[in-house]
């Protein structure tokens, strides 16, 4: 944990509001981007982040200061963004978000290619990724954001999703197997 972050948390636990201000300026950009990727709406993302800082402020007493602040706080941001984003009903609802989200994203990307060579060589644009993300539910987007934007490992995701690590491993493995099938099938 960075020195200024540890100091900010110590201040906040003592009721010194300067601590919150420090954390806001340290994490607001990352938090806004996570919330935006999940909700797809910059105004809504800002409201989510404000609410997340409010919750962090109210519940800082529960936070173990020996742990890094970012995962704990970004989990709050993600949960709020999912809840707020779920009011938008355009997404496709699926039962298993971890499996289906990743599978859908990859499969959609694969299906856009023409030949096996082009599948490998094709440069996927940010717009294409964004358009595909829009077809996922906020919960599914959160899985993608955790894995590919926040660079969370499988074990970290398991911990955050309160799922056994083996289950996460199996789901990711199954998703990748399915992708391979899709790749071969399209070739």
């Amino acid at each position, binding site marked *: 944990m960075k020195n200024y972050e540890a100091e900010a948390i110590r201040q906040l636990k003592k009721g010194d*509001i300067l601590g919150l201000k420090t954390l806001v300026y340290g994490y607001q950009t990352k938090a806004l981007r996570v919330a935006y990727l999940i909700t797809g709406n910059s105004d809504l993302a800002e409201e989510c982040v404000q609410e997340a800082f409010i919750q962090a402020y109210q519940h800082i007493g529960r936070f173990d200061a020996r742990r890094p602040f970012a995962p704990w706080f970004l989990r709050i941001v993600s949960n709020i963004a999912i809840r707020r984003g779920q009011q938008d009903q355009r997404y496709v609802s699926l039962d298993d978000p971890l499996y289906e989200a990743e599978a859908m994203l990859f499969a959609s990307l694969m299906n856009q290619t023409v030949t096996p060579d082009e599948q490998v060589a094709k440069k996927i644009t940010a717009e294409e990724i964004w358009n595909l993300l829009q077809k996922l539910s906020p919960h599914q987007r959160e899985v993608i954001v955790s894995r590919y934007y926040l660079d969370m490992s499988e074990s970290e995701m398991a911990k955050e999703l309160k799922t056994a690590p083996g289950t996460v491993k199996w789901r990711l493995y199954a998703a990748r197997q399915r992708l391979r099938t899709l790749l071969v099938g399209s070739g």
Partner: protein
Amino acid sequence: MMEQQIKEGLQEIAERHIGDERDVWPALQTKVAPKIPSQPRSRWRKTRRGWALSALAILLLVVTAVYAVAPALQSLFDMDSGLKDVHSSGLGYALNQSQVVNGVAITLEWAYADENRIAVAYTVNPARGEQYEPFAFTLTDEAGHQFPSTMGLVSADGSEVNGGASPGESGYVFSFDSSSITHRPEMLDLHLEMSLKSATTAKTVGPVSFRFEIPFTPGRIAAPQQRVTADGVTITLEKVTLTPSALTAVICFTGPDDAYEDTYEMWLPISHIDVINDGEQARATLGTQSDPDEDGCTTNRYFPSLYHHDGVWRLTVTELVGINRGYTETGEPHIEQKRISGNWTFEFALP
């Protein structure tokens, strides 16, 4: 390879839509990071009549029954020790004024006023579960004077703190700085106006307007004007105001920038207040503070309020913090701080 492209794509999308310049702090501080706007410090005038009214008002308030507010509001009171004490002592006033606009019910449930703050508590119940949030809210007195908002607590539907609230119901407790009220009126005639906007669409509701009258509770005030110098910095304790809902102090000093290579945007004092009586000590710690005004004065708010304590009062400034807002080498915004330790101690009496 594809994983890398997705990572880069997400990064590009996020950076394109959310620039580094986005700053949630100004809006956030009006909600939860209480920020007390710099105010011209008023002269307090003590009169016998004022104290007689004060005693009468307090007596009347103490016998008022505790009003059971909506669950969404009770959880918010529990987060603010001053308001929690006020409400549990029956010092607030049930208003129960309701308006329904475009299917959204807004109920002004409760209000309270003293020499530190005016607090209003209300709930919002949309007909179809859609969430609404207030904006452009103002509180004015009968002369049209607008009170600056200092703190807002929000209990949105589904949040952890919204214990037992109806689906879709949100609770709000907003506080306003009342330090500009210098004539100690018996009653305050107030006008609260707000608009609401949907959390998911551009739909707005309002403005809605409430008129109400509530008693004003005077505070216990000291104006020590004491100056203490340590480490080359002179700090002045200008005023302390103790009310049932809050304990505040105005502290003034000029930042010691000349002694350092860097110049800081602002300097803030970190302080606490003790009251000592027969060897027993109670302490209120710093909760919120305003940015310094042009005279280097900050209004500091402490918790708990210690309203029912008597004895020798002592305010201790333990640190001065110089602040610069900037960016790290990787472009992440952060606050650079310079902290100076040293005790500046002030003793004073509160009537």
